[in-house]
Structures are given as C-alpha cells and as structure tokens.
C-alpha cells in the first residue's frame, strides 16, 4: 500500500534497515530531522505503533536521538554510523558465505565471481 515488504522478516526490521540504509547512503544527512512517526507511517503505509517501535530501536542503536518536543534526528556522530555500517557488512558477508559453503563454493571462487559481476554492473 506504501512500501513493499519482503515476506520473510518482520516489517519493523525492514524499516530499520531501510532508514539506516538511507543514512549510510547519505539520503538522510547527519543531524537531519526525521519525519514524525505519523508522517513516516503514512509514507510507508504501516500503523503508527510499528513506526514508533522502529524509531525507538533506532534510538537504542544510537543512530538517532530524540529531542524533547522536537522529534527524532539522525546523529551527527558519524563514527556510530560507520560502526553500524561495518556490522551490516559483516552480517551480509557471514550469511552469504554460510550459504555459499552449503553449496560447496569456496570463498575464493565467490570473491572472483563477485569481482566479475561488479565489473559487469559498472
């Protein structure tokens, strides 16, 4: 109805990843004010409870901060964002390698293929 969600994971998790992605890519600048819970809920088509949970978890991850009466802001401290970025990279690679190992692909083989694919996409 708004955003499309993948079927295999909680909606709030996908929204957390989406917003962190926007911060890492710079679509949300450091220190930028996020839309209100209600505005964001309307934009993506989820209820305000779900959005409230997303904002709360982002705050707990220390990538946003809530200022009283003003709303939520992306943190200015880019180091925290870099940490989250590195964590995400590690998680992605770990799950990718686990799957690759299931099919008997070696890390080297996959790294080579990734490189080739990366060049094709450029």
């Amino acid at each position: 109805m708004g955003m499309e969600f993948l079927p295999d994971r909680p909606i709030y998790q996908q929204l957390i990843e989406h917003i962190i992605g926007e911060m890492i890519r710079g679509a949300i600048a450091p220190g930028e004010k996020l839309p209100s819970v209600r505005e964001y809920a309307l934009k993506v088509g989820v209820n305000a409870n779900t959005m409230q949970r997303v904002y709360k978890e982002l705050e707990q991850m220390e990538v946003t901060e809530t200022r009283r009466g003003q709303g939520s802001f992306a943190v200015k401290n880019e180091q925290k964002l870099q940490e989250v970025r590195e964590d995400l990279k590690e998680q992605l690679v770990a799950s990718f390698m686990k799957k690759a190992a299931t099919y008997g692909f070696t890390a080297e083989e996959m790294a080579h293929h990734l490189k080739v694919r990366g060049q094709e996409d450029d």
Partner: protein
Amino acid sequence: MIELHEASVKYGRRLAISNITMTVERGKFIGLIGSNGSGKTTLLKVMAGLLTPDSGRAELSGESMTRGAVKRVAYMADTEDFFTYLNTKQLFDYYESQFPDFDRVKAISVADFLRVPMDEKLKNLSKGSKGRAKIAATFGREADFYLLDEPFSGLDPMVRREIAQGLIQYADPERQTVVMSTHEIQEAEPLFDQLFVLCNGELIAENTVDGIRDEYNMDTTSWLVSLFNKRA
C-alpha cells in the same frame, strides 16, 4: 479493553460464533480474518454491544457490555444502505445528535483528507465516495474502539489506499484501538499489529504480524494458507 469469555451467538439453530474467548487491548490495530460466513460480523457486533451472547460474556473495561457501550465504541457496518437520503453534512448532523463523542471539526478534517463530497446525497455517491463518507463519520467520533466491518469491501485499490491512509492518520494508537475485518490480507497486513483468525465461528488462531514473520519466516498470507491447510 474488550474481553469475550466463551461467548457464543446462535441464529436459530446455527452457531454464528462458538465459545470465543479473546482480549482486545487499547492502542492496537487489529485484523479480523476469516472466510465469508466465519462469524466476523457477528463477533464485531458482540464487541460493539449490539448483540448479546446467548452464552458466555462480553465485557468492556471489566463491566458487562450493554448497548451503552455505543458511547465508547464506534461501529461501522458493512452496508451499502447507509443513510442514503442524507448528504455528508446531514450525516454529520445526525452523528452529532447521537454520539456525545462526535467532533465535527475532526469529521470535517477526515472528510477533507479523504475528499468526501459534502452536498451530494449518499445514494448518489459512487461506492468509493460512500465508503469514504462512512469512514469520515465513524472517525469523526473520538471513540476508544473503532470496529470496522469490511471497510475495503468492493472498493478499488486507490480508494482502499486512501482509506488505509485515513486510518493511519486519524486513529491514535496511544489510546485508540481499531479492529477491522477484511479479505484484503496482503494489502492490509502492514496496517495490523495483531490478527484474530475465525473459521466456522471458532477462533482458530491469534498472533502478531511481526510475530508470524519472526517465528515462521513468512508473511501473513502464507501463514494463513498453512493454517487452513493444516485443518483441511
């Protein structure tokens, strides 16, 4: 909180709902799922205090549910014949005369948000506009519970989307609960916190949307399919 304890309703000999025990908390967005004839409308009417269970109990905030519940519960029926000879303004007048919690400013704001024609008689409105007018009147009330019977039924995707946005905008999840029945499960899933599933008048499952996704790694639609396959 609305609570049902082993509530059953009979129409003649047929059990419309059977032995249902459930709790509807404040501040939730709840989907009521089930095929036609599964008892959704009957259940909503019991929760609204419009039907008294033949056995078992229905309670609102710990007290026996009576027709007086209507003061705190806004029920929206799934009907096409909705005050057909009134226009939206007159519909609001009527709601104002009936419900002390009706807030005309809010109703007009919802009507504006949903672009409801104000001066046309409801019978002359398109299905989509009629559906939106019903939502505006219902959410014009500052009720604790909004019970909506098939608010999406017979409406095109654009209108469904607008109505969904109206629900997100005008229900305050800090203190208000929305319970709605729908067949548009895939589309409505992101709106819901929690689901109750009915089959042949029985409550066969309840879960949260993110709980289903977390536990089974599937969306609500796939979960429902597996649920019904298991029973078949």
